[in-house]
């Protein structure tokens, strides 16, 4: 699972097909006086919002696990160096 690449795919800019802008303007003009209602657009928006929330959450977990791994590495190096010095001092 690669949430970052999925997020990039979802948010990738896609050029509209030719004539899209004209059709939108005509449709908006035709629907201007109709009452607003929830439809597929709202569902898509909610789905996109949910996906972004999940992706951001996944990124947070990924960062935390990376920090945990770095903490273990840093502590390992620090302990090795201090233990080595202690050992050398005791040996002499």
């Amino acid at each position, binding site marked *: 699972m690669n949430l970052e690449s999925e997020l990039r795919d979802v948010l990738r800019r896609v050029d509209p097909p030719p004539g899209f802008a004209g059709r939108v303007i005509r449709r908006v003009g035709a629907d201007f006086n109709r009452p607003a209602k929830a439809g597929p657009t709202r569902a898509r928006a909610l789905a996109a919002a949910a996906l972004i929330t999940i992706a951001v959450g996944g990124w947070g977990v990924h*960062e*935390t*696990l990376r*920090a*945990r791994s*770095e*903490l*273990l*590495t*840093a*502590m*390992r*190096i*620090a*302990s*090795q*160096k*201090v*233990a*080595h*010095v*202690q*050992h*050398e*001092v005791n040996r002499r």
Partner: protein
Amino acid sequence: MRNIIMSILLAVPVTAWAQSARINIDIPQSLAEKATETVEVTLDGPMLRLASKFLSADEEEKDIRELARKIDGIYVRSYEFDAEGAYDRSIADRIRTQLGPEWKRIVTVQSRMRENVGVYTLPRGDTIAGLVVISAEPRELTIVNIVGPIDLDRLAALEGQFGIPRVTKHE
């Protein structure tokens, strides 16, 4: 209002404590490019606290978590090289010159292998407020800076954990 003032007054000494033990261990990028293995860790603030919470409660990570919970930051730069003399030893000297008179050199180990390891602490009363380890070996340069109270004996005792054998070198 009183709570805000108290919070500020309590925060100031903690910040001053943390700042005085922090040194600049920024190493030129060109050194990392020459190294065969590079470890660069900068962990402090909320990310350090979060990372320590993700350590498990089992025997292996419990001690690490206990130490990590008390410190304010840990910074490590470690570079390994294929050949001897691949890095400028004056880098270690430049790090050392940042340590003012308040820093105490615990010990310096200089061996026949031309290894030079120095351990420096920043004492605060009965505790240690910061630690710097500078290890300059023929094929390896390692700098460690820990900010905050640290127990050296407990830190050294961690060696041999992490699921790997002890790696203390013997000449």
